[in-house]
């Protein structure tokens, strides 16, 4: 039973759902049965999203352990996290999550600015990463440095104003060199994703389930 439950049922589910979703993309709109079946699966997708509870349970287990063991430097953050989860859940249940409620205001006033701050800090990470990579140690890195220099010049308002050629060079690098390379990678990705998808649907690819033989 264990093998059936842990291996064959997931593979059958992967095959049936995968086959329906593939058919739905190709088959004519006249075949309502397939279209409706795909719609049902998409609706299930929303219901399946409620398994976020699994994540919440895990959070309670991890951070509950920190609190119960009074882990130094950690337990009070864990307690604060669990308090906020419960607080937000109660607020959401009582007030709803519409845009005019306090719970939405809390999200907009706390979560959104924090996320924006993290996103803004990305520029420093990128600058540090650029410093790490843009060092002329070989011919390849010298070419990369040169291309990066020209693109930066072309992206600024001042340098294209002084000499429009900077903008032209920048556009040429993007439209010809970058686009060509990215298309090549994109074709490969498409083929790789198709192969992985087919192998998953056909039950050949079982790495994601572990290797149960």
């Amino acid at each position: 039973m264990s093998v059936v439950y842990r291996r064959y049922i997931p593979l059958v589910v992967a095959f049936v759902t995968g086959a329906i979703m593939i058919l739905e993309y190709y088959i004519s709109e006249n075949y309502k049965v397939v279209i409706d079946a795909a719609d049902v699966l998409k609706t299930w997708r929303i219901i399946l999203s409620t398994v976020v509870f699994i994540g919440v349970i895990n959070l309670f287990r991890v951070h509950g352990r920190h609190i119960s063991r009074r882990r130094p430097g950690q337990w009070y953050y864990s307690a604060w996290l669990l308090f906020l989860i419960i607080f937000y859940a109660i607020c959401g249940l009582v007030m709803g999550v519409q845009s005019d409620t306090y719970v939405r205001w809390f999200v907009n006033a706390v979560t959104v600015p924090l996320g924006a701050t993290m996103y803004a800090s990305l520029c420093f990470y990128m600058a540090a990463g650029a410093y790490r990579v843009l060092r002329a140690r070989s011919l390849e890195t010298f070419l990369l440095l040169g291309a990066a220099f020209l693109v930066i010049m072309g992206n600024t308002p001042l340098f294209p104003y002084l000499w429009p050629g900077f903008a032209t060079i920048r556009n040429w690098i993007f439209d010809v060199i970058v686009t060509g390379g990215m298309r090549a990678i994109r074709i490969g990705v498409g083929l790789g994703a198709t192969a992985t998808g087919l192998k998953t649907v056909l039950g050949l690819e079982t790495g994601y389930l572990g290797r149960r033989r």
Partner: protein
Amino acid sequence: MAVIRSGRMVPFVALILFALIMYVYLELGKRGRVPYVRRLAAFDAIEEAVGRAAEMGTPVVMIPGRAGWTSSYVAQTVAGLAVLNYVARLCARYDVRLWAPMSSALVMPIAVENVRDAYAAEGKLDAFDPVTMIPFVSGSQFAWASGVIGYYAREKPAANIMVGAFWAESMMLAESAARVGALQIGGTARLYQIPFFAAVCDYVLMGEEIFAASAYLTKENILLATLVTQDMFRLAGWILIIIGAILSTAGIKAIYNFLGM
């Protein structure tokens, strides 16, 4: 009454052909006719990374991306979980702590079973602790990234392996792990994140290379044989591109019209 939607006949036939060719090579693979697969340094380096962690007594971080099961990035999640299984087996074998932070609650139960299988295969099921090994950090992008960056700073992992779909957080993770001296292996099929991994990681898997994970790491003949199908279609793609470019330059749109059927 048309069975196939207008404009999707050629892609449908191509998909059928893809499946048929894959089947042929799969049968050949069963008989031991396995194609040559070039070395992928990033996959080869995984054992070195886990060994480094064993020597240093610090954990290995393995992130199978941030995508779930219900988007077009699912193939990358599948690839990431295949690598997670391999890393978990090595961690179990060498008694190294594994930390695989989850961002998708849909992927998490599968990841837990995946790692449990790896530990069971190595006979180390007693060392498997899903609560601390595979924690759900957050479903929110930057909250999750903050949690992972915090872990890097506190635990100073010896190795950071990231294979799957990543978004803007990729640079944050790679740079933060680089600062604590982690050996980094990064791989994604998301085009805009590849340069970030290329800039910071020690080993990089570009685009489709991550989809070879399962075949390359398990060395199973059947899976290795299926890689040929991709190469055959890539060759067909190149031929179509070259002929199409020549014909289009001459004002003939035969290839263009054919693909739009």
